[in-house]
């Protein structure tokens, strides 16, 4: 399943839903969305990964970039819903504690 992502703003919160596969092929497709979120200095970004089936290190790098860049401009990032293979990768890389999964 290719990547499927959608952004929805509600007040100060930006909800970013990512589903399917986030990997070396699909992660670049998120770049412009991440760029917009950072440029707009969104105060809170909630990333919903409940529909994410697979992730690789390139996908993790995209999420880390989002996390670092949003926080660098004073925002917060919350990651929710990770399960199965993506959750195993986050735990292996000790990012479950960073993302508060």
């Amino acid at each position, binding site marked *: *399943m290719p990547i499927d992502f959608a952004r929805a703003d509600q007040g100060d919160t930006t909800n970013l839903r990512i589903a399917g*596969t986030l*990997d*070396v*092929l699909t992660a670049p497709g998120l770049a412009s969305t991440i760029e917009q979120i950072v440029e707009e200095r969104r105060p809170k970004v909630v990333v919903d990964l409940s529909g994410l*089936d*697979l992730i*690789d*290190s*390139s996908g*993790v*790098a995209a999420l*880390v*970039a989002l*996390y*670092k860049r949003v926080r660098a401009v004073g925002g917060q990032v919350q990651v929710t819903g990770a399960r*199965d*293979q993506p959750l*195993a*990768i986050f735990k*292996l*890389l*000790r*990012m479950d504690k*960073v993302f508060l999964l």
Partner: protein
Amino acid sequence: MDPRTIRMTAPCSLRHRALAVRLVAEACRLVRGERSGDDLAAGYDVRDPFDVAVVSAFAEIYNNVALHACAGLVDPQIELAIAATPDGITVEMTDPGRRFDPESVRSPDLDALPEGGMGLHIARAMLDVVDYEPGPPNLWRLSKRRVAAVDPPVVATRTA
């Protein structure tokens, strides 16, 4: 040649990555005694911890081979040989690309939230064996044993 070995030859490119990953994922199901291909239309089914480990590791190694070893070559091909038994899986992947020195790769500093250099770390952490023999052709050998589920003990009960 072991007639039970699963083999595939494909262009060494990211475009064919999903095909190779899918093959490995289906081979994992054979290891676990499930029938492969029953629900291909449903997409990936990578939930079992064994499958998670093998598929995650293989995908990272494939990325490195396609992106780095085979970059710039004309029509390079990889060859996959998968031995799937109830005891585990071994995936051998050969490529005609540039040599690589795995020892030159440092473990990532996870506390620094790295944005790269995690692929080989993931593979090594997930598998029992990650071997590399420089070529040409270069050979990656990835193995993981399967720990079979233990049946719960039978508890005798006495009735009055």
